[in-house]
């Protein structure tokens, strides 16, 4: 059994969700035009990812597993996450106006973020306990935030750079992401994690 600290580091850096696992690429390329929006998106992802990890862990281990309904996993998880996001949005709108103003517009986008659903599946596949699952979700969310903020900073510079017209937009962003992934490969082997 791995310790929570190692699970956190593996999720945060070594197996970074975007650059190593290829999850959450839509917001990574879609919401990374400025550092400000990237930060908002990152915070919203950390928040929802942790909540989703809790709820789906409870749903899976308390309802689906004892009732032998594991085959409903895919359908139940996506519906749970979709309704969770709606609930969080309504709750924040009513009770925490400041937080809602900061995260509000990113919340609906998160339902279609495969990183959230991916983390809940990985939680189940790895048979994490509730504590380890939480640590894994927070580490993954922080890893997403780190990478999307750095990437947004790179893209702000790319906008000003003289680039061949064929490479403008997506192609140069992919190549920048490729170089970032290359840098993140350097974390492989950190504390013996692969």
């Amino acid at each position: 059994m791995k310790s929570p600290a190692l699970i956190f580091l593996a999720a945060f850096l070594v197996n970074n969700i975007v650059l190593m696992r290829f999850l959450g690429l839509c917001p990574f390329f879609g919401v990374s035009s400025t550092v400000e929006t990237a930060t908002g998106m990152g915070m919203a992802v950390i928040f929802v990812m942790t909540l989703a990890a809790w709820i789906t862990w409870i749903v899976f281990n308390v309802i689906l597993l004892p009732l032998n309904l594991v085959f409903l996993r895919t359908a139940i998880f996506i519906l749970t996450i979709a309704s969770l996001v709606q609930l969080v949005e309504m709750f924040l709108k009513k009770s925490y106006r400041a937080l809602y103003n900061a995260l509000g517009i990113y919340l609906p986008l998160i339902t279609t973020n495969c990183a959230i659903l991916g983390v809940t599946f990985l939680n189940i596949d790895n048979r994490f306990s509730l504590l380890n699952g939480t640590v894994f979700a927070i580490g993954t969310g922080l890893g997403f935030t780190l990478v999307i903020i750095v990437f947004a900073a790179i893209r702000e510079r790319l906008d000003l750079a003289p680039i061949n017209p064929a490479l403008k937009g997506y192609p140069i962003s992919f190549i920048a992401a490729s170089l970032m992934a290359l840098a993140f490969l350097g974390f492989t082997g950190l504390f013996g994690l692969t």
Partner: protein
Amino acid sequence: MTKLHIFTRGLVKDNAVFVLMIGLCPALATSSTVRDGFGMGLAATFVLVFSNLLISILRKNIPNEVRIPIFILIISTFVTIIDYMMQAFQPDLYRALGVFVPLIVVNCMILGRAEAYASKSSVLDSVLDGLGTGLGFTLALTVMGTLREVLGNGTFLGMSVFGESFQKAPVIFMIMSPGAFLVIGILKALINKYVKKELR
């Protein structure tokens, strides 16, 4: 639009990966070998064709207000079917694709076709549209898988391409994650430069 146009729209003109840039997560993650890319493409095609079929049959009975949750339920039903079928008949492929098989459910390409096409069109047209879009996705993944496997491992579907000496020191970088971003970046740049103008 003729039937052929419906089919080729998703296959070439509005190719999900190379033109519309959707469904990127599975496209990059599972294209490290030809077999994985092709298998992932076919799995997504199966889900796309059957969800388009069922949604098109039910399109007059689905209430407009709750259509998205219903689409998601229908899609996840077929995802569960392909998930279990692959686990039973192709266990090696299933292990290689991992979490990306259940994640077909959040592939925006599939929900996109359900919402934009199958919920408004006849059954035959919807199936053709699903088949074209799905095979376009498969084509993109196979092209990327071929480039990455040939350069990164020196093989095509496991068969040696450049001989022993290349296979001892291939461009391993290509089958790892940076290679995926690089291949799609360069392909997209080539498409921007040479293909798009002629289609317009």
